[in-house]
């Protein structure tokens, strides 16, 4: 499937910016599931300062917002051909060792509720089936809904709260899988919803590593593994590692963010 994506993020600042940086992970790379035909990241109201592959092999850009400006606009746009591999990304590895994805992070630290939901994974003879089952149980335990969680909500908090978004679903899955000794990571990307062109927001799901299959994707929120409607952008140990944009600003005043995202065939 050939998908055309246009993703614009606009930050507007109440007072002119003294100094602000945005770290941007909005560039897909080729995988067994996708081939990137064309892609560009454009910046209006700022300049690109650095470009590098990070430790999770995400192509990362650092953007410096123009001093005195009140708006910066980041647009990622391009065309990607996707393949349905039944959610299997395979043994493709970055520079990081597998054990890194077994390590807890602040956002995926397991508490009692994560331990409870992960319990059936212990000693499972069919880990793939057990992970699908985990995914279904998380979706049931945490109703999809915005407003209750935010970027820094931990997996444990989201599960205990019973309501969250795709980020929370993915992080709960990761935290639980790691408890069972399964390397797991967070993926940010896009999902083309069949009924619309304008998408609400970027998407997130999880990947778990099984010795037989390599990395396998689990989209908890949609109860399926990623297929040809998914475009994979960045991955890491949790949201912090794979966040599309993370920034830091010196100075006062509020800022607002507006996102427009189109994913279409």
């Amino acid at each position, binding site marked *: 499937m050939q998908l055309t994506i246009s993703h614009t993020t606009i930050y507007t600042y109440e007072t002119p910016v003294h100094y602000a940086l945005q770290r941007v992970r909005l560039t897909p790379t080729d995988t067994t599931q996708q081939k990137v035909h064309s892609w560009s990241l454009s910046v209006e109201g700022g300049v690109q*300062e650095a470009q*590098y592959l990070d430790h999770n092999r995400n192509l990362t850009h*650092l953007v*410096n917002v123009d001093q005195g400006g009140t708006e910066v606009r980041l647009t990622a746009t391009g065309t990607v051909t996707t393949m349905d591999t039944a959610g299997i990304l395979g043994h493709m590895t970055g520079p990081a060792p597998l*054990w*890194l994805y077994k*390590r807890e992070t602040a956002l995926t630290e397991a508490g009692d509720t994560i331990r409870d939901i992960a319990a059936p994974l212990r000693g499972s003879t069919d880990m793939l089936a057990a992970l699908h089952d985990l995914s279904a149980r998380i979706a049931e335990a945490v109703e999809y809904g915005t407003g209750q969680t935010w970027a820094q909500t931990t997996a444990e908090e989201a599960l205990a709260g019973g309501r969250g978004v795709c980020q929370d679903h993915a992080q709960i899955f990761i935290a639980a899988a790691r408890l069972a000794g399964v390397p797991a990571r967070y993926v940010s990307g896009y999902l083309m919803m069949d009924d619309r062109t304008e998408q609400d927001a970027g998407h997130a799901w999880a990947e778990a590593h099984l010795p037989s299959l390599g990395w396998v994707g689990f989209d908890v929120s949609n109860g399926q593994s990623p297929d040809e409607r998914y475009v994979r952008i960045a991955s890491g140990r949790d949201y912090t590692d794979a966040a599309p944009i*993370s920034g830091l600003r010196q100075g006062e005043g509020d800022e607002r963010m507006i996102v427009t995202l189109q994913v279409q065939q």
Partner: protein
Amino acid sequence: MRARDNTIVLKHDHPMIKSMTADRFFDEMTGAGEDIRQPYAHYHQWFSQQDADRLDKKSREAEAFFRRSGITFNVYGQADAQERLIPFDLVPRILGSQEWARLARGIEQRVAAINAFIHDIYNRQEILRAGRVPVELIANNDAFLPQMIGFTPPGKVYTHIVGTDLVRTGEGEFYVLEDNARTPSGVSYMLENRETMLQMFPELFSKIKVKPVSDYPKNLRKSLAACAPLSAGTKPSIAVLTPGIYNSAYFEHSFLADQMGAELVEGHDLRVLDGHIAMRTTQGYKRVDVLYRRIDDNFLDPLTFNPESMLGVPGIMDVYRAGNITIANAPGAGIADDKAIYSYMPDIIEFYMGEKAILKNVETWRCGEPESLKYVLDNLADLVVKEVHGSGGYGMLVGPAATKAEREAFAEKLRARPGNYIAQPTLSLSTVPIFVDKGLAPRHVDLRPFVLVSPQGINIAPGGLTRVALTEGSLVVNSSQGGGTKDTWVLED
């Protein structure tokens, strides 16, 4: 915040308290018996011809000299945080050219192995695959920075500056206590001590040929410049990043910047500009190619590490990974000076250098191993037990100095989390005489040589910083607990 960087000046993890009579220790001037050891022969001859009152007067002059130079330190945990002088003893610690040559070879071997180890850990991890170092030791280590994975710093150098802590127990017996791989401090004392000796006893230096240390700042500059990124021009710009004037080692930061002709900057002086890190100067922003940082990894970049840090430079890790700045020492280099890693250092040296370690490691029991734990619990009264990831002597037990109740309480902690501790024997540190009451008296010493690493090679300042326990019988060389320093001489051939 607590900058780890202060370790040498203020605190030390090896109090080495041991109740033994002084004559059981190796004295570096008299050796085992009455004869003066060769390296001290000329000095001893000179000393015996000196008038004691004159030396007494000189000793007081030295203190005035240090006060004028402003070399003081602050002690953590003291509410009044007074600036204090570290006492200086006028009797030098002397190493012969042969014994130094051997020491230097050992240090060079160790430091080369450490750099190869750190590069391997952040790249292919051959040593883990080979099973020579357990994966858990790295995987569960806070000093391991995932952000360094898959990246090679300019010049493939991780530990631009190392301070290898050594102690001596006999004629050829040197042990490494710690490999300080995260920008160690103390080098300003090495330089000031020599300067003071040259001023007080110029005639001594014309009689006895001592290898100079005064070119350290020049060598530091050269070594750092040789590690500059490819994008730097032929004259790389170097800056020293300090946490600020309240840091106990601030004197050293400003001293080194001044001595090597580099700018002294704080985090708020730096920003990302034109793809580089730039510092604010009176003539506007100027690019920095090499940043000699004296702040901890965790404070280095609030966009990457501790977001609350006000001391660091947001975005510096992005510029670093893009290859446009050198950070000295490299972030994540601390993985090599962890106390549990220390116990594997002989294996690490063999693995990367293909030869046996020249310098000895102190025997170390890893309490995570059941037989070791049993031994440690059975011999707690004779051992020093430390937290694996701790620094600065916190959370440790010095068996011989502890009460029975303290040892029992510590044994409980050990049984609860054995993997969190290592244990070492107390060592019989060598002594060197100090000047007291118009005479000489032996006191225990350690040694921190300073090592510079660049693609052009490894350079070790001849000598280093000798710290001395000024109280009779004490093995605490820690400056916050009555330790002093001595000038350290390495004789020319």
